[in-house]
């Protein structure tokens, strides 16, 4: 437990839920179109009643861009973690289940992924695929599955040693069915925790890649690209960076808190403590 009681779960859950709701209802919450409602005559207006978060250099309403940006940032976070979980679980399950040379290959791959820092790997993939939402999902979704892979593999091995799998096989269950009905439910808790914490990491990684010039495909906004673009003007036009910065901070904070809270519920033995 990182914060007292379940407060981290509730605060975190609240922040994340707010971000998700904003993303879902973006067209209704936003005041203007995030791309087309540009008017250079309105460029860089400080926050006021008409533009609650001010406008950017293109004269677009920053509030509306942040509302739509939630879609991009959350999509990147969620989709990349789904990728990571799928890859990790598939490799981990099959490696633990079949063992042998395949296990060696998977553990080799896992070591490989650990040895190349994920940001470097993501940088390489982004350079190859070029900037864009799909590229981001791929770059961040292919680079950090080693942890879920290990958990899945360890769970299979433990069930194996307890004879469950042997028994299921004797009953005539198929390999796939055993993996999905016997193994998967046991690791779902830790996986959700990993994915929640990973989502925060992915949103930050998106910002870092934007900073390096390899972010989302324009002109659709992401929080990372908005923050990155505004970095020369942090002092002179502060509202350009303050609001996307806060959006990133509170969403990632929410995800981290939620992950901590979920860990207490879903993973009391804390196989995910090491994150």
């Amino acid at each position, binding site marked *: 437990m990182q914060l007292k009681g379940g407060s981290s779960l509730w605060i975190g859950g609240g922040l994340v839920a707010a971000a998700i709701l904003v993303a879902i209802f973006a067209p209704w919450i936003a005041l203007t179109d995030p*791309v*087309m*409602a*540009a*008017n*250079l*005559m309105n*460029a860089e207006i400080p926050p006021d009643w008409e533009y609650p978060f001010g406008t950017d*250099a*293109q*004269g677009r309403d920053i509030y509306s861009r942040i509302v739509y940006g939630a879609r991009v940032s959350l999509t990147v976070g969620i989709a990349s973690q789904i990728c990571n979980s799928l890859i990790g679980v598939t490799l981990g399950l099959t490696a633990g289940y079949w063992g042998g040379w395949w296990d060696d290959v998977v553990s080799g791959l896992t070591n490989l992924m650990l040895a190349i820092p994920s940001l470097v790997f993501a940088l390489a993939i982004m*350079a190859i695929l*070029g*900037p*864009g939402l799909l590229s981001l999902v791929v770059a961040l979704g292919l680079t950090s599955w080693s942890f879920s892979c290990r958990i899945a593999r360890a769970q299979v091995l433990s069930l194996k040693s307890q004879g469950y799998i042997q028994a299921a096989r004797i009953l005539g269950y198929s390999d796939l069915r055993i993996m999905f009905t016997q193994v998967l439910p046991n690791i779902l808790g830790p996986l959700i925790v990993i994915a929640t914490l990973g989502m925060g990491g992915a949103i930050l990684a998106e910002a870092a890649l934007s900073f390096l*010039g*390899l972010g989302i*495909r*324009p*002109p659709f906004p992401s929080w990372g690209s908005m923050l990155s*673009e505004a*970095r*020369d*003007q*942090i*002092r*002179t*036009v502060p509202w350009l960076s303050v609001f996307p910065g806060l959006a990133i901070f509170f969403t990632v904070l929410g995800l981290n808190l939620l992950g901590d809270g979920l860990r207490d519920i879903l993973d009391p033995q804390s196989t995910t403590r090491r994150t």
Partner: protein
Amino acid sequence: MRKLAWLAAAAIAVIGAGAAEAQQTPRKGGVLRMTAPYSASFGSLDPHTTPRAQDDIVNKAIHRTLYNWDTAGNKLALELAKSVSTSADGLTHTFKLRDDVVFHNGRKMTADDLIWSYTRIMDGSKGYPAARYIRIIKGAVDVEKGQAKEISGLKKVDDFTLEMTLTDKVEPGYYFFAGSTAILPREEVEKGNFASAPVGLGPFKFKEHVPGSRVITEQFDKFYKAGKPYLDRYEILIMAEAAARDVAFRNKEIDTSILGPAQYVAYRADPQLSKGILEVAEMFTRAITFNHDAKPFDDKRVRQAINHAIDADLIVKRLVKDKAYRATSWLPPSSAAFDKSFKPYAFDQAKAKKLLTEAGFPNGFEWELTTSQNESWGLPIVEAIIPMLDKVGIKVKPKLVEATVLTEILMKGEHKSLISSNLTGPDSLATLRCFYSKTPRTACHYTNYNNPAFDNLLDAAAKEGDMAKRNDMLRQANNLLYEDAPVWFFNYNKAVLAYQPWVHGLQANPTEITHQYPEDIWVDASSPAK
């Protein structure tokens, strides 16, 4: 028109400021901390191997070329030669070299050094970028192809006289002023460690290079210009990140900084910082290059419509924050062939709509526009264009790529259209050659524009010996480009260099503002750097 008047006034203001400074007596000694803003490292300190603007900042301190850009006279001037005489056919040039030029290792420069340096550049196995300039010398291509050991067009008359025969009737200054044609001492290059310990004949000696961080040079006391350089030490600090550069400049850790549009506004608004701003109309034209091989850009009316549909003045004013001059045609205002009577395409969406309808696109079309992330001629501009073109039905889909690969995309003709910044000077003839139909795509003919009238004008201009008449023809050619709109004419760059109040003698170099000749720079006693 108002714009142009303002432009002229600005130019005068800049020159006036320079004159006022010249009246003060330069102080000897001190340190200047120049910034290298374009990339996070230097490519190479061997000037022959690098075409990069970033590297030329260092080259200007350590090395020298046959010609130089004379900022005060706004023209090319002899640097390593005292005089030049040209033969009647205009092809052979005889240079009387300076006899007081000494390399940092103490040896005197002679005609042999020029011949050796130019021959080295033509080593075909190395692909030195300056080969494209040296190829103008007769026989240079044979060396490049390995068919000859010596360039036949270079002849040493005596130690300080060099005879150079060219293949075309051109002004040699345009070819022998680029930093990558520097004159190097053979014995130092052949030691094999030249890129790490360069030896030149410029005003400053190489002292230290921390790759990715800085180059430090020290005053060379045998420099050929009397009394110069003033500075004891000239440091070039790498700072590619604009936000960090801003902090460092305000914190007085650096003496110069290059400003982007956003910072330009902030610095102009600041009572202190606004006193140290050097502006110059650089010879870069920002434009969207249409590929005329691809539909619908083969149609002149579509290209004209786009020029009418975008409110470029508004973008220049609001988004680029007046850190640019609205482009009329291809050649920049500093070119002698620039026609001041022309007005840029007017913002007229009704006319654009009409042109599109005539061209068969009443409802517009979808358009993939390749762009880099550059804040002055990349993504932000495209983002501003999107809603404007949307109003005439054109749906722009930006394709973001890294700035490095822009050239390659252009050379391969993989683009439908691409926004970039193009060097458009100082050689107006060479600049316009990029629209000459027989120029290969890989040599800058990225539009594949084809207009026989334009070709004829260029052919005639190349043959014309009289500079005034030649400029006349080039002006007509440039005006043809205006009419045909092979590109979207966006703006000419206004380069802005911020400097600390103790810095004097900076030059408004329109070829590249960061390419300062550091021997003219001095700092007064209020400089905090030691």
